[in-house]
């Protein structure tokens, strides 16, 4: 049984079900790029529909597209079309599905967007609240004075 399956693997189709119920039919070799899915298939040989409970349909579509098209050129342009919110959700998806290439591509893109930007800018963009108390903040500023100079005041 196992040998038959591997011979037909290139044409076998699987269904992935996103958290919002959207279904995607993908070839087995595409699904295998998602190591989490691969492990699932290895454990449950006859499965046809695989639930992906933490990824929305719209992001799963993007992930599948990435796997199909990834190359140096594609990766370089890939991240430009997404806003920070989508990038974060895509990164969480890539992490959950264990797709290392996509994860690296996204981490690189996000790092690029916060390069040489002030902490205030980063907080705004990432929706992070700075919960240092004013006293803590003052103490940090004093102790590491050299750290707070010469940055874009974005």
């Amino acid at each position, binding site marked *: 049984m196992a040998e038959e399956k591997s011979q037909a693997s290139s044409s076998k189709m699987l269904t992935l079900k996103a958290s919002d119920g959207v279904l995607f039919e993908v070839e087995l070799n595409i699904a295998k790029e998602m190591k989490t899915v691969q492990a699932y298939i290895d454990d449950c040989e006859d499965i046809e529909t695989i639930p992906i409970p933490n990824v929305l349909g719209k992001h799963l579509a993007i992930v599948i597209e990435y796997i199909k098209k990834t190359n140096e050129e594609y990766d370089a342009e890939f991240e430009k079309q997404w806003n920070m919110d989508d990038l974060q959700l895509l990164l969480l998806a890539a992490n959950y599905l264990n797709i290392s290439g996509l994860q690296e591509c996204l981490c690189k893109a996000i790092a690029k967007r*916060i*390069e040489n930007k002030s902490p205030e800018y980063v907080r705004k963009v*990432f929706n992070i609240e*700075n*919960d240092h108390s004013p006293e803590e903040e003052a103490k*940090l500023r004093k102790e590491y004075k050299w750290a707070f100079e*010469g940055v874009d005041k974005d």
Partner: protein
Amino acid sequence: MASSSSSTPAKKPKLKITTNPNWLELPRDITSNILQRLGTVEILKNARNVCPYWWNICKDPSMWRNIDMGTVDLYFEPAIRGTPDLDDRLVKMCQYAVDLSSGHLEKININSFGTDALLKYIADRASNLQHIRLASCCQISDEGWCEVAKKFVLLKEIDISQGFQSKKSLEVIGQSCPLLKSLTFNGTSDQSLINCDDEALIIAKTMSGLCHLDIHGNPLTDVGLIAILDGCPLLKSLDITRCFNLEFSGNLWRRLHNQIKNLEFGLLNKKDLEIWEYLSESCFNIFDSNVNSYYEMVDSEDEDEDEHEDEDEGIDDDTNA
């Protein structure tokens, strides 16, 4: 946008009440992956000051396996670039980052502000260091290396370009670093064209594991180069740009062609590229001819004499009579 209440323990990430995804919910190792790409100065100046949670992640030794301070002056105001004050700050930052690594440091890249004292500081705290780059560090001396080399036994890659190291440093490095695979040692203070194989011979004798060697500008002769090819049988990548004392006599070109997969020799003129391509494509029997230099070799085989009348143009060495 409403924010949640203020008094929470410093390390717990606080959630803003918003429908937008929360970046603080990212797994720690992913956040670490992103922040590490920012480079050492960026992390210390900006990233870790965003919130206590990121501050905490930036204290993790796993964030500090690679310290990259290779192009640092971008981060500082023009007024202080190029001043001793900046160098002091950079040294302090570097020491701070080395402390954070807690012995896990594997790779470090420093441009120009390195000193003997900093080198010692690193050596005393980073016994696992495998890659070191100290570019244009004029304040690092042979004595500095002599004192610390024996602590860097795991070094695989050393780049001390544009520095003032002499054969003394090479000797002590060769003796102390048995795992060395890559050496960049060029732009020495002595740029004279006087033949000198001292450095080449030390490399040949003590660095038998080398796979990559960049010695551009070195005053070595054919003797030194042959010694290196003999002494470093694993050598696959070699940069001998501006090594003007090389004559490539006898079958030295053949040896280079056979052994070296990636050769940089700095095209002095278009002629050199033609020669290399010609030699690479031609049959090996041309190497049996009894000639004194590679220029003669090409001349004797090539039918197109006209193009080569002015082959001496732009060549600085004294190969051609």
